[in-house]
């Protein structure tokens, strides 16, 4: 498959874009990364994702596909030679999908709330919420991994990719809110999985360092402040 046939429109700090990059790496697919500059949103973005106007947008030939999880599943189903991303058993697939939905709809938003928490009381309550979620995900890890290295077993799978893509931002919140969330004493399974996942060949050049993400946030906040004047 020629490199120009496979394109990803994205932006490096986006966990949703990172998911697609990791999936492509798992399948050893060559692709062209097109950086979206925003300010304003490009013609390419607006025309290929008119419904949501968001990155990532994945192009296979002339067909655009949107929404990170839809893209990851497409990559898994289209490129069948190479490691599988979704499990093969219908029940294991349902379990993986359930926890991915939980991470996206409940857990990651709670992390976002913690990042912008004001005041010690609010911060404490939000830390508890995030930690409770991580405890659930620790149980999920034990259930899904069945003693192996990843949620997906011996190799990284759908839930590893979906949840792992947020690890950079999780570390940002640990630094900014000065709290240990991936506590080896409380959630040993996840704490060790996080190290393994981050250093996995398909992942290590994709996940941004938390320091870079913190710098990025400072730039955006400065811009917002300047625009408000």
């Amino acid at each position, binding site marked *: 498959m020629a490199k120009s046939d496979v394109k990803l429109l994205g932006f490096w700090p986006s966990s949703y874009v990172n998911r697609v990059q990791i999936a492509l790496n798992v399948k050893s697919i060559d692709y062209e990364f097109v950086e979206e500059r925003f300010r304003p949103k490009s013609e390419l973005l607006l025309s290929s994702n008119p*419904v949501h106007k968001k990155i990532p947008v994945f192009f*296979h030939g002339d*067909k655009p*596909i*949107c*929404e990170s*999880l*839809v*893209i990851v*599943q*497409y990559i898994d*189903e*289209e490129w069948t030679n190479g490691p599988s991303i979704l499990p093969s058993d*219908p*029940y294991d*697939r*349902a379990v993986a*999908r*359930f926890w991915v*939905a*939980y991470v996206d709809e409940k857990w990651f938003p709670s992390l976002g709330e913690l990042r912008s928490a004001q005041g010690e009381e609010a911060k404490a309550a939000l830390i508890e919420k995030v930690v409770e979620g991580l405890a*659930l995900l620790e149980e999920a890890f034990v259930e899904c991994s069945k003693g192996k290295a990843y949620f997906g077993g011996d190799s990284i799978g759908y839930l590893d990719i979906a949840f792992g893509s947020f690890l950079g931002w999780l570390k940002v919140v640990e630094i900014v809110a000065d709290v240990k969330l991936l506590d080896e004493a409380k959630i040993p399974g996840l704490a060790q999985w996080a190290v393994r996942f981050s250093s996995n060949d398909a992942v290590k050049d994709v996940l941004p360092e938390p320091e870079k993400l913190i710098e990025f946030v400072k730039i955006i906040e400065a811009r917002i402040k300047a625009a408000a004047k």
Partner: protein
Amino acid sequence: MAEEVVLLDFWPSMFGMRARLALAEKGIQYEYKEEDLVGGKSQLLLKMNPVQKKIPVLIHNGIPVSESLIIVQYIDEAWSERYQLLPSDPYQRAQARFWADFIDKKVWTSGHQVRSSKGAEQEAAKVEFMDSLKLLEGELGDKPYFGGQNFGFLDIAFIPFYGWFHTYETFGNFSIEASCPKLIAWAKRCMERESVKTLPQQHEIYDFVLHVNKMFGLD
């Protein structure tokens, strides 16, 4: 091994209806267990879905599966030898999943706002709701079903909302058919299917919503 299939559900729930439709289309025998969500959640529900505590929950040989679209895909994959719900082509599958996700993120949310809010908030919700429906109508195009020639995943994801149209229209004071005639034509075509005929009627849903609003003093 004899299959034991139980569905924990609540009759007006459009999410529950999706599971019912998938089971019916596949010809799967199951036990329907009504959760009276107005009265309070049962021990069985809390045990089978401790994380979200929501219906529908499909219990297959004692093992629970939750979240309506996940349940529909599970049914399609676990009974893969029967009538196929998702298309076989990966790109078509991606499109079906994209639009099902769109329905949950945009149509459900704005529809809920239309029937539960007032004033400027309701007006904004109406605009978003109708814009979303128009986009879906565009996706349908001239096809008989969202799945093309065959009633499939995306049809199952969306047709339960038809039962709620009269409720949205009455609370919001607008006509869906006036703006999206093709969607109504599609819905009526779906209503000819045996599985869809078993879904609650529009007036039943509307009466239910009025009853709940009265009970909780929301009217």
